[in-house]
């Protein structure tokens, strides 16, 4: 069932997409937060340096700026160390720079901002460094305004961020895989009832069960209940149609019997032609009714799931019946049917098939009729032998052929094989005629078997209406 698999795929893919999106977004947010945190730390450090720098500023008598004492951090003295300062006297006092700037200087953008407010920029600095700059414009006691800036290489932040990002990526990837696996497991677990449902449906389709058995989760159970209700409704419809077809067919039989008797009366009065026509038509109608009845029954039976019957019981009943019907002829009817053998179909049909064949064998047999049955794969093989005259090979096909043509219904034609053959075909079985080791005819019959291990299905027996007049 590709649909169930695609449902699973869809769920897993959906989960994967959400996990990836959530983790990537999470990683970005965390990285940005961390970057902000790192930059705040850098700016805090720079703030200290700035304060120290401002505190050390002095103006010489000639108005030149100077630094009373070196800043404590040695990186200010190491060229391109990544930590710089600069004091811009704004035309008046010249520019002071940290030694680390060497012959470079910080290209502070010309911005107008409030005095004594620290603010920061990101600039490109010496040696292609990207710099985080903290700047403040202060007014010295000499009323001179100077721009004081401290800068740090952003690479230190990026370096930490890269290392952090790597760890984050690895751990988030691991987390993602874990979540994905969990989602997969969850999907499989969640869909397990659907798989069970699929198996139950297969059982129903194969005729091993009449309804979807078992308890399902609350989300699936309503579906299962609906399906069961649908199948029961279906079975009930089929059954009702069948009963109605049966009642119609049986209702017609008594009028036909009256017509047959009337034909006889006509015959006695000398109206032989009319009698013959009447008789022929009665036979034809009878055959049609029997045929359609059998069709309706077998077609219905094939659609009713879980139907089966015990072959041995059918055969026992038929043997009792035939021993009575052929009493006084001294016939020996032997049957050998294993108890466990099950025919996958309606009991009535099983009896109809075997009854006609056995009766036929009894009619032709001199003294012995034998029925043996056994299972062959998923079929039941039944052999019916008699010690009668048999049928030669050439005539065997004709025995079937005649049965097949409903409109040719010759009175007393054939071996009653018509209905049998139709039923066997409807059940997708096979029937063949051969020579019997007993000397007469052998009927070689194969019918669908039901397995003994499957739970039996009790078919509701509809009440027959009237039972025919």
């Amino acid at each position: 069932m590709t649909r169930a698999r695609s449902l699973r795929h869809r769920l897993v893919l959906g989960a994967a997409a959400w996990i990836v999106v959530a983790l990537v977004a999470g990683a970005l947010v965390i990285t940005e937060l961390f970057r902000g945190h790192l930059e705040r730390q850098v700016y805090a450090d720079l703030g200290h340096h700035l304060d120290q720098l401002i505190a050390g500023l002095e103006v010489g008598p000639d108005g030149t700026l100077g630094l009373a004492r070196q800043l404590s951090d040695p990186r200010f003295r190491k060229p391109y160390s990544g930590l710089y300062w600069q004091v811009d006297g704004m035309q008046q006092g010249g520019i002071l720079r940290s030694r680390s700037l060497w012959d470079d200087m910080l290209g502070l953008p010309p911005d107008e901002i409030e005095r004594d407010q620290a603010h920061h920029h990101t600039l490109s600095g010496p040696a292609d460094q990207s710099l985080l700059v903290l700047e403040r414009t202060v007014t010295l006691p000499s009323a001179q305004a100077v721009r004081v800036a401290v800068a740090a290489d952003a690479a230190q932040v990026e370096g930490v961020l890269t290392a952090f990002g790597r760890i984050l990526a690895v751990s988030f990837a691991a987390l993602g895989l874990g979540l994905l696996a969990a989602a997969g497991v969850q999907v499989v677990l969640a869909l397990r009832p659907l798989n069970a449902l699929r198996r139950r449906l297969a059982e129903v389709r194969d005729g091993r069960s009449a309804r979807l058995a078992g308890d399902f989760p609350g989300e699936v159970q309503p579906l299962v209940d609906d399906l069961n209700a649908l199948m029961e409704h279906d079975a009930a419809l089929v059954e009702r149609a069948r009963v109605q077809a049966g009642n119609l067919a049986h209702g017609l039989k008594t009028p036909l019997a009256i017509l047959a008797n009337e034909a006889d009366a006509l015959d006695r009065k000398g109206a032989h032609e009319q009698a013959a026509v009447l008789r022929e038509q009665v036979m034809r109608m009878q055959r049609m009714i029997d045929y359609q009845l059998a069709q309706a029954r077998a077609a219905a039976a094939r659609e009713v799931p879980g139907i089966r019957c015990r072959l041995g019981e059918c055969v026992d009943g038929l043997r009792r019946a035939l021993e009575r019907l052929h009493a006084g002829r001294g016939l020996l009817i032997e049957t050998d049917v294993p108890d466990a053998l099950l025919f996958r179909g309606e009991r009535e049909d099983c009896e109809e098939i075997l009854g006609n064949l056995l009766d036929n064998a009894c009619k032709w047999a001199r003294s012995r009729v034998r029925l043996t049955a056994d299972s062959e794969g998923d079929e039941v093989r039944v052999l019916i032998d008699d010690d009668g005259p048999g049928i030669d090979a050439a005539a065997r096909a004709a025995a079937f052929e005649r049965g097949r043509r409903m409109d040719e219904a010759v009175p007393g034609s054939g071996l009653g094989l018509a209905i049998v053959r139709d039923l066997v075909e409807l059940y997708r079985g096979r029937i063949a005629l051969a020579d019997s080791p007993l000397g007469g005819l052998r009927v070689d019959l194969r019918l669908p078997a039901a397995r003994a291990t499957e739970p039996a299905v009790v078919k509701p027996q509809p009440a027959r209406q009237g039972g025919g007049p």
Partner: protein
Amino acid sequence: MRVLLVEDEARLADQLADTLRGAGYAVDATRDGEEGWFLGDTEPYDAVVLDLGLPSLDGISILRKWRSAGRAMPVIILTARGAWSDKVTGLDAGADDYLAKPFQPEELLARLRALIRRSSGVATPEIACDGVVLDTKTAKVTVDGRPVMLTSHEFKVLSYLMHHKGRVVPRTELTEHVYAQDFDRDSNTIEVFIGRLRRKLGVDIIKTVRGLGYIVEEPG
């Protein structure tokens, strides 16, 4: 031979009764299940033709009641339901034969003859005794190959005696099996029939056992 016919369809019942009477049977016909059961339970019939779908009491139940009460007369079931499953049910309930509607009247008569013969232990369709041959198929009697014309009642008397060859048949039993129920019975008329039969057959195969009844003796 006396036959009970239980069939609820009026027209078919009339036709069958005619057919049976035409074949030389004394026929009691009823359309009601209860009445059918009662007749079969109390009257001595040589055979019963029983429809299955009946008002008040269905054929299978009637049959079961008869059999459990030890009524052993041959019963042929007549029904619209001709499937083997129905046959098995009917025969298991104690029927001896089964005829599905529609059927040819000759078919019913042939089956009935076979059943009656079987139940009285006669193996062939023709019963013979000292040159007198009764053909159950055609309901004709010949003496040394020469046909003898008999009335319906004469035939019934001879047929019953020959079916029960070698046994003394009391006059009352003979009366019961020759007349239908609603017939005004007079056992003296039996004597008249016996006398006529002896005259027509020309051979004295029917012996009177004084105080007991009549017997057709086994030859030899």
